[in-house]
């Protein structure tokens, strides 16, 4: 028994190490590449070298930080709208049993539609409503896949909140909406956090809608990163620096939230 337990914990540690290395080594390679000169990039084994800051200078000059700021803005607005509308809708679906379970999954099906097909309707709408110089079209396009996912995520969380809380608050003198806002919503805050982070990831990573729908001259981060993939080759060094810029803040953030994230998800979301 003890020997078995030891064996398992050794295997477990080994597995985690392998997983950690698998995740980190490519990232480490990217980090190294961001400090290499073009000639040094041709040598994969090169680990010790005098770091070169040209790539970073180039990336900063190319406005990647601004692009990151714009992406963060688009993602934040998208997620904020999705969380407000999604939590209200999810509660209506969960508490009032609106729609069957198939509908709950059906919400997600539209997710598989190719952006290549949906982008032109968005573009037409943007032009028709003269919104093409704003971020509104990108935000709407991102809402098309973030809002359903967040709504769907939250239904499960609301399922786990006893109905009597809302009823109690209503008897205590509040309207249904006040009951929802003051009593029910606080119960699913961790879940909302989890859903928000996941939604943020989706918006943060999208390149295609951002490329077509974002205002000219105001690229968002994935477009800026992909722009280093030029016809005359991939500017690996600069792209690597841009990737680091895109990843580090989010990983630091996820370090602080992930415990809540996992607990948040445990609260519901995965029941249907």
């Amino acid at each position, binding site marked *: 028994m003890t020997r078995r337990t030891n064996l398992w914990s050794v295997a477990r540690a080994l597995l985690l190490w392998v997983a950690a290395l698998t995740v980190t080594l490519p990232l480490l390679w990217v980090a190294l590449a961001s400090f290499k000169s073009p000639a040094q990039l*041709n040598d994969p084994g090169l680990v010790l070298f005098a770091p070169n800051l040209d790539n970073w200078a180039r990336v900063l000059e190319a406005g990647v930080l601004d692009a990151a700021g714009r992406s963060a803005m688009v993602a934040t607005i998208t997620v904020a709208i999705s969380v407000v509308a999604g939590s209200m809708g999810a509660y209506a679906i969960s508490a009032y049993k609106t*729609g069957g379970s198939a509908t709950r999954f059906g919400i997600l099906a539209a997710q598989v539609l190719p952006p290549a097909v949906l982008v032109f309707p968005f*573009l037409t709408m943007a*032009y028709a409503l003269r919104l*093409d110089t704003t971020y509104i079209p990108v935000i709407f396009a991102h809402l098309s896949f973030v809002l359903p996912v967040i709504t769907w995520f939250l239904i499960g969380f609301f399922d786990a909140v006893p109905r009597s809380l809302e009823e109690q608050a209503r008897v205590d003198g509040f309207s249904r909406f006040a009951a929802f806002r003051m009593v029910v919503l606080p119960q699913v805050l961790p879940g909302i956090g989890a859903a928000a982070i996941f939604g943020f990831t989706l918006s943060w990573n999208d390149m*295609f809608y951002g490329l077509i729908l974002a205002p000219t001259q105001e690229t968002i981060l994935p477009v800026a990163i*992909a*722009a280093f993939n030029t016809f005359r080759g991939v500017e690996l060094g600069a792209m690597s620096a841009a990737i680091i810029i895109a990843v580090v803040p989010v990983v630091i953030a996820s370090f602080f939230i992930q415990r809540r994230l996992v607990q948040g998800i445990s609260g519901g979301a995965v029941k249907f």
Partner: protein
Amino acid sequence: MSTRRRGLLASMGLAAALALTISGCAGSGGVDAPDSSGLGDIPADTEGTVRILMESVPDTDIVVDLVASFNETYPGIEVEIETLAFDQMRDKLIASFQSSEPAYDLIVVDNPWMDDFVDAGFLEPLDARIDSTTDYQPEDFFQPLVDITEVEGVRYGVPFYNYALGYLYRTDLYDEAGMAVPNTLDELVANVQQLTTSDRAGIAMQPQRGYKIFEEWANWLFAAGGSIYDETGNPTLDTPEAAAALDAYIEAFTTAAPANSSNWAFDEAFRSVSSGQSASMISYNWNLPGLNDPDGASGELAGSFALAPMPGGKQVLGSWSWAIPANSAASDAAWAFAAWITSPAVDVERVVAGGAAIRESTLSNPTVLESGFGEDYYAAIIAILSDAAPLSQGLGGEEMIQAVGTELSEAVAGTKTVEEALADAQAAVERIQR
């Protein structure tokens, strides 16, 4: 249960109705185009903003650097250049045409798009402007580049830069082996095989499916004496020459190209050559200065590269052309900039700075010859540009290139025989032409 579904249906129906009403807008790009003045010489006091969408490559950087000097002549014209990577730029450009509002006043057009854009009415005809521009010397442009800008006898663009291909090779390795630059396809195959050693490939190839493999292989096709189209414009891809070219291509790939390089494109091949892991490649002529740049990717190998035309003398030509969108909001100002940047005098400056050639006279200009890339280089470019042809003609260029590139890739991957692949390619091109 059903209430929500009804709600969804209702909102979808509403949206569909909305779609139908708005659909009138679809494809209306260019309809509201302001009439072109057709002016060639644009007055120096013209005011306006020229928004340009360009590819993010060094040639664009050179153009950006020249804007200040343009503004000395045209102080009232503001030039705003937006750069994007090739693939992104294309998608963005197509999208911008869907608007009735002008998004760009001047664009650069890749050769396969030219016929489709003209057919769609996206571009302004430039004959009148070109012919009435003083001292413009349009006959000085390399003819193959001009041909690309012409659709049914009307010019819709002026050349911006060429990306004609050629054979880039290491002179030290050729000297070491006592070999001369290949004159036939067989010699090419034999040379690259001979250059192959255990730690170096004879030739870095670019068999990535689609554009890349076709762009590379077509050079082999020309070297084998074949062609993509006959004189009447019908495809000639299932000829014995094509089969010989594809056989040779596959032989070289399996015997002289780097191991495990089936998805390689330009980037990998360039890195392989610049790092000394491959002895040669077939690629754009303007790569030579980059390869020979001591501060570039080649490091110590800089200076040992040379450029030659393909065996047989004919190669694939790509080109970018300046064109004015039909819905340009500032077409006069746009032409002012396009005509200025391509004028004989400014072209010299651009080429000296490293820009790819478009004018024959520029390459014999003393300033250019002294500028450091070397007379041999410019001589090779003249040779290359005098006999070069694009991959596609007519409508559906992009699709035609992808279709042929897919069949070639099948042959290299071994999923089709050479004959099957070429027959399918021929059929595909014929289908697209219809």
